[in-house]
């Protein structure tokens, strides 16, 4: 037997960072999520721009809804990929038999998805400005706050429910079926907050508070339940 044990239980932050770096490396090499997400988002914008021909004023009223619906649909592609790469070669089993904390895996996946979806939102927002001649009347920094809270709301639930559906046969269909209904309060808040800021009609603070509350509640619940979901067989 070994005189001194080589292995030890690693720290939460250490594994979170290692998993995040590993996921970025995998994505950089495969480009599975980013390519499909960007292509999908571009299609949505182009189709919407053909379907509507709004004035600048109308653009401000509808852009919030269009952007977030586009982001939601495109994000599902990335969210499905998150766990698909862990299922290939059953790599998830290697994580599950290790002493690494389950929470690290969830945080790394959620943060990774947050970064991927943010990378999607930047060109998407720029394209909306060009295609819809969009100018915000309210302060832009408020749009940034809404974008951060809204993106986290989508990815934290998306990451969790994607993990929940990995053992189902039709997991790619299952994720939107579970995610979309539960995201309705967040979607309502992000669309209304964005529209309120773009049109400058009133304060978006009520919607921002709702988004922040939604984020806190669902992040806590997802963190508490993830280990059970990960080990459910």
């Amino acid at each position, binding site marked *: *037997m070994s005189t001194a044990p080589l292995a030890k239980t*690693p720290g939460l932050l250490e594994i979170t960072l290692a998993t995040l770096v590993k996921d970025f490396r*995998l994505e950089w*090499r495969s480009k599975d999520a980013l390519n499909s997400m960007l292509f999908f988002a571009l299609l949505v914008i182009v189709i919407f721009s053909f379907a509507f021909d709004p004035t600048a004023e109308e653009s401000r009223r509808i852009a919030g809804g269009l952007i977030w619906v586009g982001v939601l649909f495109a994000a599902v592609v990335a969210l499905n990929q998150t766990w698909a790469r862990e299922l290939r*070669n059953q790599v998830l089993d*290697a994580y599950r*038999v290790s*002493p690494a904390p389950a929470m690290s895996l969830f945080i790394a996946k959620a943060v990774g998805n947050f970064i991927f979806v943010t990378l999607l939102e930047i060109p998407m927002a720029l394209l909306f400005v060009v295609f819809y001649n969009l100018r915000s009347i309210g302060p832009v920094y408020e749009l940034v706050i809404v974008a951060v809270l809204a993106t986290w709301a989508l990815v934290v639930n998306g990451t969790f429910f994607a993990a929940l559906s990995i053992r189902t046969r039709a997991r790619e269909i299952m994720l939107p079926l579970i995610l979309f209904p539960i995201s309705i309060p967040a979607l309502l808040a992000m669309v209304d907050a964005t529209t309120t800021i773009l049109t400058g009609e009133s304060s978006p603070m009520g919607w921002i508070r709702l988004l922040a509350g939604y984020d806190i509640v669902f992040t806590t619940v997802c963190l508490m339940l993830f280990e059970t979901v990960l080990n459910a067989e």
Partner: protein
Amino acid sequence: MIPSKDSEQTAGDQPAVSVYELVRHFGRFAALRGITSDFAAGKLYVVLGDNGAGKSTLLRIIAGLLPATGGEVRVLGAKDLRSAATRVGYMGHAPLVYDELDAMENLRYFAGLYGIHDDALCATAIARVGLDPMLKRRVGQYSQGMRQRISLARAVIHDPELLMLDEPFSNVDVGSAREMAKLLGHMRDEGKTVFVVTHQASILAPVADEAVLLADGLMVARERGMPEWMTQPHPAEALVARAHQEARR
């Protein structure tokens, strides 16, 4: 219960693995139907049986990957299998490594899961299974045999006391499989407990301590060394034939 024919275990010795009335159902299908046995530490066990006998299920339960429907498991004295995770290694039927990473990148990540940050150790583990640690090729471009070897390196990177391998020789050429078997024998000699589920028992014959035969979710035989039924294409049938022969005598 199938009593072990091994009488070397003293009262003070703690078995590496104890299972008691272990049951596992998948829906209405009973994969394990009440297995009770103690497995002493420092031995190499070859787990045999036809497809669907319950071999992989037994291994996955011991590894903590699958909860038992009923019964009890103790691994290295621990009832809470998570608490023994640093001392257990598992190699699944699939390679359990990332195709997009090279061998060194894979091992570096998996070693990190055990709190190990030592490139030299990763390189040694890769070299030990007969691969080149400097090879920059992604694992997805490896042959099946090379994948099995990197999977073995991943399973032993943290120097586990208990090692469980599910079909480690599938798609591996005979020469490489013998090398892997020799490596497992060395690990046993170092005091590790090794469980190997396989259909190619003859490869392990030189190093096996005990053969365990499962059939229909039950442990139907357990014998020391290398009994003749172990290397038969259908060990359960060979065992039944032997029982008939003994009865006739």
